[in-house]
Every structure is written in structure tokens, then in C-alpha cells.
């Protein structure tokens, strides 16, 4: 007697399926084109990462970490972590993961920052976009794999697409917050001197929102890395695939190694982008 009445049933799943079918039938050309463009970008970035000698990358990361964190020890630690990945034998896979992450971050920023600005400028946009962002972040990340797979087939491009959806909310949110936080007095002063809305945006609001946007970039990057690993399930090669294979074959050692490499990558990216964000914040305060 505790059955939920059938007549109240909403066949949402069916509708979504039908919608996806409709999209596929009518817009496959569009998605093929987008997919192709993304693929070319991805392949070039990946080729670049694989072309640069490993020691150049290690050196670059070491110096970058040293410069942004103002501590040479941090530079050494970061360089060593990257070396370890190579020592485990995962250099190539790590570079593929890094390439996909980088691509996803670039696209996320290109999409996310303008949306964040738009959201900050319009209260209506904020009311509409905010719940969408909430949904995007709470939805289990695996769910994104299915439409990505349907639209772009197997491989890197659906991986990029799924990563984009999962990773873009933080940068949108923090761009919005950053711009809205700019003090009214400062904006009023710019207006009083005859600044146009465009000048106010570029001269005052965006520069003052940079620290917040940097925090958003840091979070987006971390989420992109996490999702890239999951995206290996639909054929995006890289460290994630190793973990997946290890699970399938119950190879604990292999899984641990690959997992550790992902952790190292995460630490390196997080520390560097985080240091950049705090540096921006301090730059504004001093």
C-alpha cells in the first residue's frame, strides 16, 4: 500500500532521452564541428607537452614554484614531485593528463569569466545562473559522461566537454563575487569622472576582482584535474586510465602508483595557482 501512485509519475528520463535523440539528429554537424576544433586544439597542446624535453618541464615547474612562492625550497620540492612521476614511469601519461587539464581550464576560463561578468552585471542573470551552477556542481560527475559520449563519441573531446561542465562553476561564481565585491565608492568615483560602463568594467571592476578570479581559477583547475581522471572512463587517455585498468585487473601496486602521480600533479598545480592568487591579493593590499 506504500507504492507511490503511478499517475504522478513524471517520465523525465524518457524526455531527456528524446531530447538528446533530437539534438543528435538535428545538430550532429554542429557538434562534429565543435568536436573537431576541440580535438585539434587538444592534440596540439598534447603534442607540445610531449615534445618539450622532460627536464625542461621539471626545470620550468621548479623555477615557477620558486618565483611565485618566494621560497627556493618549494621550487625544489615541486620539481622533485614531478621527477617522481617520471621515475614511476608515468611521464607520458602524466603529460597527456596535464594537456587535457590545461585545455579544459583554458576553455573553462574563456567561457566562465565572461559568464561571471555578465552575472555580476545583471541581478536577473544571477538569479537564473546560480541554481544552474549549484546543479552542475552537485550532480555526480559521472552523469556528464553520458551526454558527452553521445554528442562527441569516445575519446578526448567528450572528456574535455564533461570536464568543462564540471570545472567551470567555480570560476563563474568567483568572477561574479569578485566583481560584486568591488566597493561602491570606488565605482562611484569612476562614474563621477565620466567613465563609461566599459571603462568602469576594465579599469576598476575586473582589476579589483582579479584576486577573487584567481581563487576561482585555482578551484577550476583542481576540479578539472579530478574530472580528467574520471573522463578516462570514456576513453580520454592519461593517468586516469591507468587507475581504471588497475581497478579492473585488481593490480593494487599499479593503481597506487598511478594514483600517487595524480596526487603529485594536483599538489603542484594547486600550490602554484594558489600562490599566484594570494600574490594578487597582497599586491592589492600593499
Amino acid at each position, binding site marked *: 500500500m506504500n507504492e507511490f501512485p503511478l499517475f504522478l509519475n513524471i517520465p523525465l528520463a524518457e524526455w531527456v532521452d528524446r531530447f538528446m535523440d533530437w539534438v543528435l539528429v538535428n545538430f550532429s554537424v554542429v557538434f562534429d564541428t565543435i568536436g573537431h576544433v576541440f580535438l585539434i586544439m587538444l592534440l596540439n597542446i598534447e603534442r607540445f607537452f610531449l615534445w618539450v624535453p622532460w627536464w625542461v618541464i621539471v626545470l620550468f615547474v621548479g623555477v615557477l614554484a620558486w618565483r611565485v612562492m618566494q621560497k627556493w625550497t618549494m621550487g625544489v620540492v615541486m620539481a622533485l614531485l614531478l621527477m617522481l612521476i617520471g621515475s614511476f614511469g608515468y611521464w607520458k601519461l602524466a603529460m597527456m593528463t596535464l594537456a587535457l587539464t590545461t585545455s579544459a581550464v583554458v576553455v573553462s576560463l574563456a567561457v566562465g569569466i565572461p559568464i561571471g561578468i555578465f552575472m555580476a552585471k545583471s541581478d536577473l542573470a544571477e538569479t537564473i545562473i546560480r541554481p544552474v551552477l549549484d546543479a552542475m556542481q552537485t550532480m555526480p560527475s559521472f552523469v556528464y559522461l553520458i551526454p558527452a559520449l553521445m554528442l562527441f563519441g569516445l575519446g578526448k573531446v567528450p572528456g574535455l566537454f564533461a570536464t568543462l561542465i564540471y570545472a567551470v562553476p567555480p570560476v563563474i561564481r568567483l568572477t561574479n563575487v569578485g566583481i560584486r565585491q568591488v566597493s561602491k*565608492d570606488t565605482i562611484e568615483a569612476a562614474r*563621477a569622472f565620466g567613465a563609461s560602463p566599459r571603462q568602469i568594467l576594465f579599469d576598476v571592476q575586473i582589476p579589483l576582482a582579479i584576486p577573487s578570479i584567481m581563487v576561482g581559477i585555482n578551484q577550476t583547475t583542481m576540479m578539472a584535474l579530478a574530472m580528467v581522471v574520471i573522463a578516462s572512463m570514456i576513453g580520454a587517455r592519461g593517468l586516469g586510465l591507468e587507475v581504471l585498468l588497475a581497478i579492473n585487473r585488481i593490480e593494487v601496486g599499479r593503481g597506487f602508483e598511478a594514483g600517487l602521480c595524480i596526487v603529485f600533479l594536483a599538489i603542484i598545480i594547486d600550490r602554484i595557482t594558489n600562490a599566484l592568487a594570494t600574490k594578487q591579493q597582497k599586491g592589492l593590499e600593499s
Partner: protein
Amino acid sequence: MAYNNHADQTEEICLEVNGLWKIFGKKAQEILKSDLRFESKEAILEKTGNVMAVKNVSFSVARGEFFVIMGLSGSGKSTLIRMLLRLIDSTSGSICVNGEDILKYSKKRLMDFRRHTTGMVFQYFGLFPHRTVLDNVAYGLEVRGVSKAERLAKAQEAIETVGLKGWENYHPSALSGGMQQRVGIARALTIDPEILLMDEPFSGLDPLIRREMQDELIELQDRVQKTIIFVTHDLHEALKLGDRIAIMRDGKIVQIGVPEDVITSPVDDYVREFVQDASPAKVLTAGGIMDQPEALLYEWQGPKAALRTLRDIKEDYAFMVSRNHRRLIGLVTLKRLKAVIQNNGSFPEDAFEPDPPTTAPDVILEDLFPIAAEADYPIAVVDEDGRFVGEIQISSIFESMTQNKEVDTGE
């Protein structure tokens, strides 16, 4: 008491505000069209939820005038000054600058107006924290599209004008409050505006710095001769700086006048209460309290004629002035005059009191106290050309201190 809202007709009018209203809220137009608009701020708020911020304000300001708008917080003064460059839109009325109604400007024309005609200084400075002092000061010209070299040169000039040389490459956060406001003033001066709008620029500063900045502003105004609209809640500041003062209450201007008028004839209880604490000693000037002596001595008169004059007016002194231009020559006292006549001394030299006290018409009472304390005879008021314009009895200094007020604060 009737008062004149408008600047001296003989001077060129720079800004003229007529029947200006501002009501915050959705029913603004409705309220304006109904009799509700005559009701008090509180009544309107209660009945409609809207806030009457500026109520039928009219005034005009002459070119080069220092016009102060004074009121307590919530009196609408900050709203009013923002309406003058449309940072806040008016509900109704007109604001004419050089004869053009800025409320009719298009967005583009308005931006142009803000870029060229007005410069504003804010209570909380409103500086750009991500820019150096130099780039902050150059911002007005940058918005206008002036080339980098030119705008930095002009900014440098303005920075030197406000005494911040050497601080160009610091960020505002490295500066003290007073210095930050100098940056704010420099930023407004850089664009060489016709009208300088200042919204409580010194309220956030500690008293010592505030006084210093006020003095510097007076000095600066002497040099640049801008039309200044200055908002403050501080009566002393208003009296010190303003050529004329408008006192606002509940969105209305309740009195406009020169500082002396406001102090000596407050228009209602509100203003009276406001000026209660103001020391007349800081406001009233020698010119304002001086009298004309009953008789003067002229340089061609002989000692006998002089003695006759003194006897006629029953005084023991009289000022001697020149034939042309009433130039003050000296103070003849009865005692010395008698001595001259008895001893056949030389006249008028020997009849003069040595070092008679004199003062200028614009000296405030406070500065007369030390002179008055030393003086045995009335103080002569002499203008900048050396002309005798009046005399001040020592007693009248103290009378004028107490006359206009029920309580003397003794400040």
C-alpha cells in the same frame, strides 16, 4: 525672515538649481503629483514607503564662489551634491550649468560633462587601490582619452599642487587618511574642472589634519578660483570655508546666506540650534561690528578746531584722516591735545597716541581679543588701501559676542 537663494546678480552664474526634487522609491512621480509632497518626510515614508530626500530645492552659485551645503546626516545634502552631476537621478526640477540643463543631457553628453566640467572629491576618498597615486590622479584624463605622456605630466603637476611630491609611485593604502584625500583632491584638480564638488571631504580625518586641510583648501581656492560646492555637517567648517552657506533639513534648504547672516539671524529654531555652538568670535568680523564715529578730525584742522570737535562730541579721542581718501593719519587724544595747546607743541604730531590699535575689516573677533586687551582707546578699522572705514569700541566686541545668543558658550 526672507532670504535670497541666489547668488549676487552682478556676478556670472555658474550653476542654477530650480525646484529640484528627489524621492527614492517606486511611487516617486505619484507623490510628486499629489499633495503628499507637502507632507513631512516621516509621513511620506509611513504612507508610501518612499523616502523624500530632496524637497523643492532652488539656489544658484556664482562663478568662483565657495558654496557650502550644510546639514545633519539624513538631511539630503549628500544626495543633493550627487544629483548635481547625476550620480543620482533627479525626480523633477532643473540643474543648469552655464545655462544648459544637465538633466536633459543624453548619456554620452552627460559623460562628456563629467569628464570636462566637474571634478568630485569623496568622503571615503574613492581611490583606486590597484593604481599608484600618479595613475589615480591621472584617471580623469585617462577616461577622456588624453595621451599618456600628457596626462602623467598634468597629474604630476596636480600632485605637486597638493604637496604629495615623492609619493607618485605608492599605492593609496600606503598613505594616511589626510594624504589619501590629497590624492582625491589632486585627482579632481587634474581635469581642471569648472566646478569642484566636495562631499564631506574632511569628515573622515582627525581634527588636527582636518584644520590643516581646510587651511590648505582656502589657500588653494585663492590660487585656482574654482566654483566649489562643498558639503559638510560641521558648522565650523562651513563658516570657515563658505562664501555662502545653505542649511538643509529634511531635504529642504531652510536658510541660505553669508556666514555672518547665518550666525546673527538664524531663520528658525533648527538653524538656531545648529549655530548655538558656533562661537561668534570665529565668524563675526571687525567690519561687521564696527561703528562710524560721530566725528572725524581732518588733517587741515588746527589744534583749537580739534579741541572744539572733541568737546562737541564729548569724547576724549578722535581719529584724524587725510583730505583725500580718508586715509588714517593718527589717533588724537584729549589729554595730549590739551598738552599741545598749553605747551605750544607741534600739531598734530604731539597730539597723537603712539601706536594706536588698528585692524582690517575681515579680521574675526577672536583675533581682536589680544588687540582689545591692550587698547586704551577704540580700535580703528582700516582697509587694505589704508582708508579709515570705522571704529570698534572695546565694549562692542563683547556685546556682539553675547547679543545674538541666549547662552554664551565662552568658546
